[in-house]
């Protein structure tokens, strides 16, 4: 067997070294594109789900959301939040907690000061300007004016989709382009009315978040008539995303009546988007692999058909079929390995850096490539397996062919 391998390697090596350089270069180029296609499509779809995940965790609900009791009676607020937050903070691995006050209001803004108001209804979240940046990242996405500051009475930060003028998909339903420092009227669901000064505009590039407005907890509590430490929800940040389940269990032990959810459960709509993308990623990966395998198969098949006469000659002079088949498999491995190497260079040196500096702007945020190590490894093994099959089948067929038919093409 070692003897056969040596001869097969010799024939394969000579075929590559002394073969038609243009064809070899073309085969490697096509295989490198097949590899890039395999990694790129999955990475871009991973990028979509990663962006969705990051937006939710970093700018909206953190890792875990604690909502008020639902059974046996539905409550509007979580009580004794100070004590509960302290207990949660004591759990090892919990980075921080914040309380939110969730309101809904109708906004009225007279842009041209001519009595022509534009109206719209959006969520308003009461936040602690000092604590909030530890848990969510809206404060780092202020695109005009400033973030809220304590005490911040009668100050408001608007999401860009509310403010308008920042090219959002919902531009027509926005306030049409607010100016920093101007006044805006809010009528809350409970009948309270307030006039706020617009301090800033935030934009995280995720429509669901950019349709929120932010006021201070003091303001929110005054509107809701809360004088103690009740809150609408508590957000919990942990230091390792993915470990939420164990923290949810521990928090549920501390507050068995409250609704404790991971970020993944928080919005069913995003879950369905993520699941859909996972499905699409799987389908596209499978299709990409079939395309890559077919490409290799066609290339190797054409190559072996072109060398049919040579295969016949080799058989005629007494070279074993196994040696011929192995030599073609080695050649297809060579093409696949160099296709993977050049594909990796294209992917990691050109495509990935390009998308990092020029992400695709979608309604859920800036999408870049999320290249997962396991998918790259899977891509490599898939391509090598495809090369094995694509090298084996045509070489096996050619090697099994009648010698005279192979030589004279009968």
């Amino acid at each position, binding site marked *: 067997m070692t003897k056969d391998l040596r001869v097969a390697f010799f024939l394969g090596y000579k075929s590559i070294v002394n073969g038609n350089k243009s064809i070899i270069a073309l085969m490697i180029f096509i295989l490198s594109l097949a590899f890039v296609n395999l990694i790129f499509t999955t990475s871009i779809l991973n990028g979509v789900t990663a962006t969705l995940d990051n937006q939710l965790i970093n700018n909206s609900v953190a890792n875990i959301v604690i909502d008020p009791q639902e059974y046996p009676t539905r409550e509007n607020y979580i009580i004794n939040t100070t004590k509960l937050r302290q207990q949660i903070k004591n759990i090892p691995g919990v980075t921080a907690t914040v309380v939110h006050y969730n309101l809904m209001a109708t906004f009225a803004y007279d842009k041209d000061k001519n009595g022509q108001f534009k109206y719209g209804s959006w969520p308003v979240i009461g936040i602690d300007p000092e604590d909030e940046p530890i848990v969510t990242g809206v404060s780092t996405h202020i695109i005009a004016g400033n973030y809220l500051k304590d005490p911040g009475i009668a100050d408001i930060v608007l999401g860009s989709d509310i403010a308008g003028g920042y090219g959002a998909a919902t531009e027509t339903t926005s306030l049409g382009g607010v100016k920093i420092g101007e006044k805006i009227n809010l009528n809350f669901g409970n009948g309270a009315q307030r006039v706020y000064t617009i301090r800033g505009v935030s934009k995280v590039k995720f429509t669901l978040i950019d349709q929120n407005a932010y006021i201070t907890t003091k303001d929110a509590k005054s509107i809701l008539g809360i004088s103690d430490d009740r809150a609408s929800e508590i957000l919990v940040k942990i230091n390792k995303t993915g470990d939420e389940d164990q923290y949810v269990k521990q928090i549920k032990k501390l507050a068995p009546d409250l609704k404790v959810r991971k970020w993944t459960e928080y919005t069913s709509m995003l879950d369905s988007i993520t699941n859909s993308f996972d499905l699409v990623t799987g389908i596209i990966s499978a299709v990409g692999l079939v395309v890559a395998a077919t490409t290799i198969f066609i290339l190797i098949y054409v190559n072996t058909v072109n060398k049919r006469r040579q295969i016949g000659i080799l058989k005629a002079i*007494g070279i074993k079929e196994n040696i011929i088949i192995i030599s073609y498999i080695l050649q297809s491995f060579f093409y696949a390995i160099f296709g993977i190497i050049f594909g990796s260079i294209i992917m990691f040196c050109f495509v990935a850096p390009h998308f990092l500096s020029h992400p695709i702007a979608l309604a859920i945020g800036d999408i870049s490539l999320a290249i997962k190590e396991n998918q790259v490894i899977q891509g490599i093994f898939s391509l090598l397996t495809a090369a094995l099959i694509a090298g084996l089948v045509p070489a096996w067929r050619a090697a099994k062919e009648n010698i005279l038919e192979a030589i004279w093409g009968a």
Partner: protein
Amino acid sequence: MNIDIKVKNLKKTYTGKVPTYALRDISFEIKKGEFIAIMGKSGSGKSTLLHQLGLLDTPTGGELLIDDVNVLKLNDREKTLFRLQRLGYVFQEYALILELTALENVLLPAFALNGSHQSYRKRAADMLDKVGLTDRVDHRPNELSGGEQQRVAIARALINNPKILFADEPTANLDTNSSREILELFKKLNKEMGQTIILVTHEPDDRKYVDRVLWIKDGLLEKEEKIS
């Protein structure tokens, strides 16, 4: 035994809508060291006969003993090894491996038989020297003339010391001078090395190089002609 090949009632029929009887009950013997020509008109079955003798094709019936081995009972794998160890071939169209140099083409059968090419480089170079290509060892087939390629093919056919050398119209694509050189080379190998050679040719002039001619007509052995 002094017999290299024994053929008895050899048949080859190509099946189809109308069966073609390419070889019909051919019987003959070839002695060790003989230089035989198989001659006949185009389509007479001479190449078909050579292909059966050289184990490149399987006869429909009959018996074939080569070097005392009933080769028709060998399986494909055994036939391959038999070809590698005991038979050598020279085809009409040179049939060299294009990616290999002259030297590599010659040593390939030895490498396949013994698993080492380094130890056979000298022998391959000697074989090329014997066919007059000492200065062409590192040339690839596309850098050689037709006659030179055919001489490389002869050197390759001889590298494993085959019992029998088969040559299927080896001069068909060569000019007169090259053809004469190749046939003289065969004659020299036959005389000096005692090599059994079976040559298929349609050139009547080639008879002068051989010991005996087997005349084939319509798939039958028409006559045997001894050349003095």
